[in-house]
């Protein structure tokens, strides 16, 4: 049995109603709970009725986070491998039909990007790519991971198109320990509407990805919903249900939950159900109060002001100084740039002249432009130790048989 059958049986409508209509008494009961909080408690904590309790929630959330994770913040950075994609997703800059500049980095170019990040301090790298089996095969991923692993990057995760368990295994064996896959939206109807072409149309296949990855040996699993597609409280409840399931089923994996809000991107899709900053803080606190041990990830999608404010509330893993296009850190891959429309190459731009920086198109526009050093300095000023290395390659090496 996978999460799909559990998901199909979830009383999502009831929980969503609770998240809308919870009373002050429901919220107080959820807050007063000693021990494990349920999905009903989580829904009550997300509700408008909980908004006046945000400061109290934040205090408990902060205390739980410090207790379990300390006054430390883990840092990571993404390396975009490729923005080629066979899917059409209405909200994504890499969408197949978008007329954007595309490229795929060769392994040595990935290494150049990683070396740039290592100099900045990063020891935890997330490899990201669009879904395109021709350009981003599991063999290519394995080679990228193996090269980084050999070069001494201790912690490597991937966020790529979902694969079969067997196809993940060589990537894990090469030293990759984290798998990130966002469901985007847990609302089947909205999902169908958003994903109009490509393998990503298969909702269930994507929903089972984390479990397939776990079976292949990934030690860290990251899930999340892209906030802005469906109603955010309903998405949050589904994410929480998914987290609850994975904590039991995939008990050896460190689970992280991400709360990415839609950002401007090529295609100019507008969020249908925006979530305010205040609601985002409420979401973070509700997650922490319900799942004291789960990692909460915050990317550079959010503004410096909001990121700094959310640090004490429950966040445990942050990216910094990020680029969301292949070659974004070093300009690597620009020699292979091409513009595509509806999946066909229509133009190969002239090679940029010296000093001109011409890169592939980004997935989305980031909001926190501060460098890694600036973010680290801010963390220290807030009383947090920036933790760059929290993993050793020796842990992920295969034992010689």
């Amino acid at each position, binding site marked *: 049995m996978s999460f799909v059958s559990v998901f199909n049986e979830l009383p999502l409508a009831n929980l969503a109603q609770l998240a809308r209509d919870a009373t002050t008494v429901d919220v107080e009961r959820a807050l007063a709970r000693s021990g494990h909080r349920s999905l009903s408690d989580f829904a009550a904590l997300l509700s408008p009725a909980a908004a006046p309790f945000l400061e109290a929630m934040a205090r408990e959330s902060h205390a739980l986070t*410090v*207790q*379990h*994770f*300390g*006054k*430390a913040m883990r840092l990571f950075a993404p390396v975009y491998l490729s923005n080629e994609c066979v899917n059409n997703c209405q909200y994504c800059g890499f969408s197949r039909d978008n007329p954007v500049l595309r490229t795929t980095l060769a392994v040595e170019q990935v290494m150049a990007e990683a070396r740039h990040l290592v100099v900045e*301090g990063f*020891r935890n790298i997330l490899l990201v790519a669009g879904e395109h089996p021709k350009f981003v095969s599991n063999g290519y991923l394995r080679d990228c991971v193996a090269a980084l692993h050999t070069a*001494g990057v*201790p912690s490597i995760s991937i966020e790529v198109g979902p694969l079969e368990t067997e196809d993940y295994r060589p990537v894990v064996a090469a030293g990759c320990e984290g798998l990130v896959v966002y469901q985007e939206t847990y609302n089947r109807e909205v999902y169908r509407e958003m994903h109009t072409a490509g393998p990503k149309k298969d909702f269930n296949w994507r929903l089972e990805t984390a479990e397939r990855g776990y079976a292949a040996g990934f*030690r860290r699993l990251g899930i999340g919903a892209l906030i802005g597609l469906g109603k955010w409280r309903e998405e949050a409840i589904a994410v929480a249900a998914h987290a609850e399931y994975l*904590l039991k089923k995939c*008990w*050896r*994996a*460190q*689970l992280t939950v991400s709360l990415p809000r839609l950002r401007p991107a090529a295609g100019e899709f507008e969020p249908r159900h925006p979530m305010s900053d205040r609601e985002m803080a409420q979401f973070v606190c509700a997650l922490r109060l319900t799942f004291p*041990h*789960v990692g909460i990830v915050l990317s550079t999608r959010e503004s410096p002001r909001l990121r700094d404010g959310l640090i004490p509330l429950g966040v445990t893993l942050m990216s910094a100084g990020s680029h969301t296009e292949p070659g974004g850190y070093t300009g690597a891959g620009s020699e292979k740039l091409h513009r595509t429309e509806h999946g066909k190459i229509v133009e190969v731009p002239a090679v940029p002249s010296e000093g001109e920086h011409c890169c592939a198109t980004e997935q989305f526009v980031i909001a926190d432009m501060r460098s890694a050093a600036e973010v680290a300095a801010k963390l*220290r000023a807030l*009383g*947090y*130790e920036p*933790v*760059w*290395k*929290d*993993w*050793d390659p*020796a*842990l992920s*090496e295969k*034992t010689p048989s």
Partner: protein
Amino acid sequence: MSENSSNLQIAGREFRSRLLLGTGKFASNELMRDAIAASGSEIVTVALRRADLSGQHDRFANILDFIDAKRVQLLPNTSGAMNADEAVRLAKLARAAGLGNWVKLEIHPDPHYLLPDPIETLKAAEVLVKEGFIVLPYINADPVLAKRLEDAGCATVMPLGSPIGSARGVETRAQIEIIIAQAGIPVVVDAGLGAPSHAAEAMELGADAVLINTAIAVAADPIRMARAFKAAVEAGRDAYEIGLAPRSREAQPTSPLTGFLER
């Protein structure tokens, strides 16, 4: 420490302090260094996954630079290892990197509650002892496992008081009492001690030492809290060595039955 208190002995080494310190969760490495000094601790554990084992002096993984290995016994720990193979590999790597042959063996496959795996811990302990390591295994408060690890040649056992970071105190008291009663090696109560009174309680029970991390690291003033734990550990040890008065349900007159003989 009172002049009469005995010293802690582990693997032939003698320590005046019976307070071991963990180094995770501090707001800065500088604060961690100062807390170690304030605690008087002579044994300090460091997660190897946080440290630079490459020998290239990585300034982004320089936690070891803040620990004076001449003054304290460095106790690298294998936190992050999910099985015996990983723990053994990490310990060997640490030794090869010049971090010595003491190892706090931690194998917790569940990354959320960090509860130790007894089967893998015993397997790894057997290998590491044979390889010449001084092994201090972190375990659940399981008296039989503690004896098995002692038989395997471990230098101590380190049963948990309650889950790591939980601050719930010596919830495993009854089991720890058995472990202490049966142990032929030092017993270090590790994890879950959230208040100096918890540490004193463990010491009064006869634990040879305690290990504290979260309660000091995340305190509003880690240095003063380190001093508070130092005092509590010393008080608890003194009380244990002197012997506590037996507990009673009722008030006891000084000489209820035989007082007449004194008149």
